[in-house]
């Protein structure tokens, strides 16, 4: 039981997919304009990650080694399609805000990376919790980045005005701001990592 707990926790800080493994950065940057978008993207990616991890660890025994990547991609694409349809039905506004980045979860290197590096080698339970942990880590990273960008770029948190008389730096809400913020955050994580050693 303790082992499973570790699988879950490692994705949050020690092997955080965004800051430590540097996986799946494209959607992270594109959707992190507001925290709502960040949360939606994180939830969608977590859903895909958890279920594709489960299925892949189930089929790992009888998928020939040579065609495993295409098989994994089909499994992932199936869950992405399910997410797309669910999002269109229940939250069309979020679907419009995330735009083409929802179908692009298929090529998110984080999902395929976990399938290849973890789920294809471990049993269902471990894969399930690995997926949950990684998903939470990804969501937290998204919330951190989008929180910084929404606060500095629009003066809001979750769409609510919180600072009065503050002139927001619009550049942070623009694409270049995303790149600057993630560059500085990665640098910060490097400093923290070095101090730990």
């Amino acid at each position, binding site marked *: 039981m303790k082992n499973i707990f570790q699988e879950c926790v490692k994705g949050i800080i020690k092997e955080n997919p965004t800051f430590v493994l*540097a996986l799946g950065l494209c959607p992270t*940057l594109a959707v992190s304009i507001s925290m709502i978008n960040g949360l939606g993207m994180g939830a969608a990616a977590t859903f895909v990650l958890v279920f594709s991890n489960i299925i892949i660890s189930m089929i790992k025994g009888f998928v020939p080694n040579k065609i495993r990547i295409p098989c994994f991609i089909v499994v992932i694409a199936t869950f*992405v399609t399910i997410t797309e349809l669910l999002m269109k039905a229940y939250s069309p506004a979020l679907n419009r805000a995330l735009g083409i980045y929802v179908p692009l979860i298929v090529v998110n290197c984080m999902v*395929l990376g976990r399938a290849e590096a973890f789920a294809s080698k471990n049993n269902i339970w471990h894969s399930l919790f690995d997926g949950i942990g990684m998903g939470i880590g990804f969501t937290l990273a998204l919330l951190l980045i989008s929180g910084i960008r929404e606060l500095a770029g629009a003066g809001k948190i979750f769409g609510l005005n919180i600072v009065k008389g503050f002139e927001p730096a619009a550049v942070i809400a623009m694409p270049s701001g995303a*790149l600057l913020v993630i*560059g*500085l955050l*990665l*640098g910060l994580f*490097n400093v923290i990592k070095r101090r730990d050693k």
Partner: protein
Amino acid sequence: MSIAVFLTIFISAVFINNVILSRFLGLCSFIAISKQTKPALAMSFAVMFVITMSSIITWFIYRFLLIPFNITYLRTISFILVIAAFVQLVEMMIRKFAPALYRFFGIYLPLITVNCAVLGVAVLNSDMFFAQGKAVPASFLYSVFQAVCAGLGFTLAMLLMSGIRERLELCDVPKALKDFPLGFIIAGIMSLSFMGFNGFKF
């Protein structure tokens, strides 16, 4: 169909909505392979080729398979499968018929399958040039042209970035920012300058 539309697509895809700097597609390869100019150029040409070809293929699939049978929700699955199969095919053919080219592209060709720029442009084409389940007039030409321009935009960003990073090798930079973090910050500043093209209208 007019020249102005093509010009708008060109300016928009290369500068304003540059695949890397504004849409954030293909960031992984952009950051990972932009340390030197030559591999960066090889990667860009490979990406440009694959984006163009896969846009052509996915246009036909969308127009003649997914729309008539009313199964457009299978877009993601069918596109990614076709792109993966196509990249594999190209790799085998190039290895067989043009070994020199194969060595030039090296490992970058298979990597392109998971480059989100390829799927991203295909999805974007099917969003932009199909309306209410029908192809807009000249939709095929627009799609292919937009794919070529997106590839050009990728090449432009890649060349600029690798040029800067080659010079940067000789500079003394803060240790914590070395490599990836600095790459993102440079890309951020580049993206800022590309914003100057915003509001370019015809």
